[in-house]
């Protein structure tokens, strides 16, 4: 599951650009710091490749194993 920590996001869009799926898009509204953070379009598009997590300069996006996929 993709988690976005909006507190840290500076709106650089690197995660959105390099996501090999189509899981992310730019929010229409600014976050509390005035930046356009990414928004999850579709969790099902995410392959948990962690490209976004590794590329993020601000620790603002990360992937957690969801309980369901851990069980199954």
């Amino acid at each position: 599951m993709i988690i976005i920590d909006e507190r840290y996001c500076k709106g650089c869009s690197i995660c959105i650009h390099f996501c090999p799926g189509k899981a992310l898009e730019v929010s229409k509204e600014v976050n509390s710091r005035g930046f356009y953070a990414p928004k999850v379009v579709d969790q099902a598009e995410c392959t948990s490749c962690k490209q976004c997590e590794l590329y993020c300069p601000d620790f603002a996006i990360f992937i957690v194993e969801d309980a369901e996929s851990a069980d199954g």
Partner: protein
Amino acid sequence: MEHHLLKYLREEILPTTHCPGCGCGQVLNAFVNAIDTLRIDPRGIISVTGIGCSSWIPSPYFKGDTLHTTHGRAIAFATGVKVIRPDSNVVVIAGDGDLAGIGGNHLIHAARRNVGLTVYLVNNYIYGMTGGQVSPTTPFGVVTSTTPYTNAEYPLKIAELVAAAGANYVARWTTYHIRKLIASMEEALQTKGFAFIEIVSQCPVAYGRRVGLRDGVAFMEYFKENSVSVRKSKTMSEEELEGKIVVGRLARRERVEFTESLRKIIEEQRTGTGA
């Protein structure tokens, strides 16, 4: 839910002061990833930095002992730390201006002595913090704030220089090659002797805006387009390599580490078994 690497960071002062899309944060991310994979206790790491945006990568964000020193002198301080605390992991992170410019001689001679430091030089082609002045790694022909009519100097191939000086481990990667960079940072941390990675990184604000690379994404695409592997570079002429970024490992040796030799000499003199 929180990012699993926040445990290595001083959360209370995040986000970092770096500009949006700056590569400095990616280097910090890669660094803590490497530490996490190797299960190194951050309390055993002493990070030493100079002055500049890149020097703000571990300091103050990394939760470990940090020496934030004067411009160009990180390696001199780090050498002192390593001599006194040979068992600690001494890591230097600083910019091209700091390590290749004002501190260039310290770098060459620490590599020659093979001091057991891990050095990550963040090459963003510019003096970022002070507003985009030309640095020793700025490409030929580009406009910077101090070369308004284009740069007449050729850039230093700093990783090749450190390899020639005798370091035990030398590599170059860019922020685009993040997984390779993390693996290389791990190799450097495990190297006995001088380990050096030139990390080609983006400064969209003080450099990029003058050369048509206005954000982090544009820079990373540029790195992707213009990188060639060490292996491929060996089949290319100097002209063909013009403007290319050669990525990969450039040196690996097993020379004895400096402080180890020092301790051996001291021991021999103490016991009267030496020369």
